[in-house]
């Protein structure tokens, strides 16, 4: 069995048809992680005990001939911002270096209830703050397609694990592009669901009004299968919506005839790499050929998305990260007074980017600046939402590049925070507005680097997003057959 070619669907089938067992798969994936992950750094912690006991339970079901759950035996990697009971959970921060979570995130328990085998926890930017995975407190992740380049961020380890063939699927979180941008850089599929579609319970908070948990896979169908398990109301997260969960796989394979595909001019302007533009435009032509109507339109407030995002996200982060003070869990550095203990703990525990964002967020919320920055950004957030309301009155989905360039080199942007922030220019708005979006591979640069196409949809209309994504995936199949780098 070629592990590299396994998808969610084919893995379950292989277990169901007794071509392999969940235990044998776990063995094979751990052997591959041991051999290949040191060069990539996608995993921070492996949870072998937990994985093998889950695999044994799945194998027992298969032996008895019982019905198998939808993700039976599928080896999955989970971003280390989701809590896992009894397993180290760090958010890639030294401040949580030894934290053993006392409960499971809803995303984790839903995956396991669906039969998935969680192999381990993946590396990311510290507290999910970054676009390159270089902000991890435990070292960077390398892009499996080119080890001199970043895998994207913040869910870099999750995307890289799939691209390296050390997981079949993965979970990430997207606050400003942290699922879609690494999916684009690593050449995999990454889906950010609507805000409120997937529970945030047990997701270590970065910016609560923007944090979206979601799946990564090799194919659009895999993303649909994963979302099916993850989506739904959770009494433990009051922001999850009581909106019915449709059969997502039923959308995969539907034609796009008659659908209206909007192409926003602002996403194809200055700063867009020529090869990325060509690849995405050719993907749009495939949709037109498949019967979709392509509608040029405008999202006029797009240039204000990044500044809005960096006010709101940092303000929420500065509040959320106040809890890391050395009192109840995590790192403590002793001091003579309580205040000195707080300061020493936070100075030692947080990395440079996290400190930068806490400072920026504290500044924009501080007396005298609240109206000028925070309230102003919230008002502009309304204008951005209005842009999308108007666009979605005319079209069913929007198609854009996921990122302005393919994966950049390690170290290239690390000294210039503003340049790094601009890597998220095409992804942040969907987070602010709360709509779903997917990134799918749509070609490669001359250097062989993957290029991602982004498809954005209406609130709770992941189905149409998946439908359109699958048509592009299918149309490009001849040149985009999934391949693992080694």
């Amino acid at each position, binding site marked *: 069995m070629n592990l590299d070619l396994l998808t969610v669907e084919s893995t379950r089938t292989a277990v169901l048809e007794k071509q392999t067992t969940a235990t044998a798969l776990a063995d094979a994936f751990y052997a591959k992680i041991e051999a290949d992950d040191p060069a990539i750094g996608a995993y921070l912690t492996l949870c072998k005990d937990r994985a093998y006991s889950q695999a044994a339970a799945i194998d027992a079901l298969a032996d008895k001939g019982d019905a198998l759950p939808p993700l039976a035996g599928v080896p999955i990697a989970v971003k280390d911002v989701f809590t896992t009971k009894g397993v180290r959970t760090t958010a890639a921060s030294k401040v949580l270096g030894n934290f053993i979570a006392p409960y499971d995130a809803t995303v984790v328990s839903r995956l396991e209830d669906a039969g998935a085998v969680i192999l381990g926890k993946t590396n990311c930017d510290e507290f999910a703050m970054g676009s390159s995975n270089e902000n991890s407190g435990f070292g960077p992740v390398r892009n499996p397609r080119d080890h001199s380049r970043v895998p994207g961020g913040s869910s870099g380890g999750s995307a890289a694990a799939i691209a390296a063939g050390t997981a079949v699927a993965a979970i990430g979180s997207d606050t400003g592009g942290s699922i879609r941008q690494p999916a684009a850089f690593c050449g995999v599929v990454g889906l950010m669901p609507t805000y409120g579609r997937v529970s945030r319970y047990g997701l270590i908070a970065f910016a609560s009004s923007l944090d979206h948990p979601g799946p990564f896979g090799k194919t659009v169908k895999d993303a649909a299968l994963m979302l099916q398990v993850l989506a739904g109301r959770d009494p433990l997260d009051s922001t999850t919506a009581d909106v019915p969960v449709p059969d997502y796989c039923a959308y995969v394979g539907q034609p796009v005839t008659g659908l209206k595909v909007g192409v926003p001019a602002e996403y194809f302007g200055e700063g867009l790499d020529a090869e990325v533009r060509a690849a995405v435009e050719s993907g749009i032509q495939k949709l037109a050929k498949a019967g979709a109507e392509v509608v040029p339109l405008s999202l006029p407030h797009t240039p204000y998305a990044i*500044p809005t995002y960096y006010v709101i996200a940092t303000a929420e982060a500065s509040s959320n990260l106040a809890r890391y003070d050395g009192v109840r869990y995590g790192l403590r550095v002793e001091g003579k007074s309580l205040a000195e*203990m707080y300061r020493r703990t936070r100075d030692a525990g*947080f990395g440079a980017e996290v400190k930068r964002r806490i400072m920026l967020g504290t500044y924009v919320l501080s007396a005298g600046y609240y109206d000028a920055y925070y309230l102003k950004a919230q008002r502009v957030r309304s204008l951005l939402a209005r842009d999308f309301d108007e666009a979605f009155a005319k079209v069913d989905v929007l198609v854009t590049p996921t990122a302005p360039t393919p994966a950049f080199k390690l170290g290239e942007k690390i000294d210039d925070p503003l340049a790094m922030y601009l890597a998220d220019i095409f992804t942040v708005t969907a987070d602010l507005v709360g709509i779903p979006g997917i990134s799918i591979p749509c070609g490669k640069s001359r250097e062989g680097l993957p290029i991602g196409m982004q498809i954005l949809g209406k609130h709770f209309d992941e189905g149409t997003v998946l439908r359109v994504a699958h048509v592009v995936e299918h149309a490009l199949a001849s040149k985009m057959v999934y391949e693992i780098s080694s």
Partner: protein
Amino acid sequence: MVSEEDVAYVAELAHLELTDAERARMLKDLNSVLGYIDRLNQLDTTNVAPMAQVASRYGERNGESPADAMRPDELRPCLPHEEALRNAPKSDGIFFKVPKVIER
């Protein structure tokens, strides 16, 4: 423009000490990012309502917006005391222990 004094003041609010080198770097970075953020002032938002969260914009069901969702105030199981203390850097088995707070 953010000044050195502003950096010191905000660091204090945020319970960060920061080394001299970190403060110098922070001054430069905050000014660069805030300079970029200033472009928000190109927009007239006088009559635009602030948007604090997404849920207030969609999905009103049964007359209740998800943003106002309430649940009955019922007792539910919570983390046992012992487990809640397991990650504590210092504890006496009942409480978290911290340096003395009240000086006299």
